[in-house]
């Protein structure tokens, strides 16, 4: 009987370790203020369409204008 309990506890211990490892090394989420978002929108005709929302750019290139005081 004691051996059964040892096996049960060992299995639980292994599961707990796996859960902790999975939680701590989860993939990085994109920075929310810069990531693009995809939203399913239901149109007037009932059809669903995927809307890809533009993410803001990190920088803008243009002909360099002078600094305004």
């Amino acid at each position, binding site marked *: 009987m004691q051996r059964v309990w040892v096996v049960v506890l060992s299995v639980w211990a292994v599961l707990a370790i796996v859960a902790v490892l999975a939680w701590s090394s989860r993939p*990085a*989420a*994109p*920075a929310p203020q*810069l*990531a*693009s978002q995809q939203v399913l*929108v*239901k*149109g*007037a*005709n009932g*059809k669903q*369409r*995927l*809307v*890809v*929302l*533009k*993410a*803001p*750019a*990190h*920088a*803008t*290139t*243009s*002909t*360099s*204008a*002078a*600094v*305004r*005081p």
Partner: protein
Amino acid sequence: MSPLARIEWRAVGTTCSAAATTTFGQEAAAQLALTAAQDEVAACERELSRFDPGSGLSRLNAAAGDWVQIGPRLREALRLALRAREETAGRFDPTVLPALVAAGYDRSFDLLEERPAERADGWHRGASIEVDEQRCLARIEAGAAVDLGGIGKGYAAGRALDAMFEIAPRIRGGLVDLGGDIAVRGDAPGGGPWRIAVADPRRPGETLAILALAAGGVATSGRDARRFGPHRSLHHLIDPETGESALAGPLTVTAVAPDAAQAEAAATTLAIASLTEAETFVTVRPELSALYVPHSGPPIPLGRPPFEPQRFVVKAA
């Protein structure tokens, strides 16, 4: 999660920014990287500005005809400018300064006063620039003067980006933007390439395209800004063939290259090129691509600009 550290300041006659992609626990290193970028831009400006009478470039111009001791940044920027002049067969020429000054662009842009354009006496294209790399000496032809404005900014952007990675090698990515001359490397926040918007010169505040760039440089040149002279009829793009504000060329052109200095040299060259000339220029240089925006009609991609795919809004029915 990969946070973004960012700084914005004014230098080199424009608005500058630097950004670093970092990880949790590395925020201090990211701040160090941003400070290093700022310091490097300041160091470049001290050597390369033609508006600072104490800069290395101003001393070189003032002593035209004589050998002058120069700093390592000016030496490198001169080397890049000379290479660009050679590679563009003189279409990019850092010695157009006397023609630019004669046209009226004789002080920092925000201090310009209106006066009629003149022609530079005795100016000729392709004035000689000699650089003794070993001894850090340079000499320009008597009567000539050098302007490293555009390529100097591109060079400074690249140097500043290098400085960020030197002082904080563990940052995951970096971006330096000197008034539209942009250098990037590594990951943007959230992973993937940096997204660079190309401003629409015809509709202020609008974007023409988004470029996705993991490494390299971007620069835009054109005649939509920095106009001056009578009725704002002149612009800062001097055609080395004539010594006057260029007639041919697009409204703007954005060039993408392996580094920001090359991108700036390419943009300056393409900005005074007809569409046919621009197509030929990019075709024979596979490392370059560009977005050529004519005065009217749609923008024209040259080469294969790294447009960000599938980033448009699909309107729901």
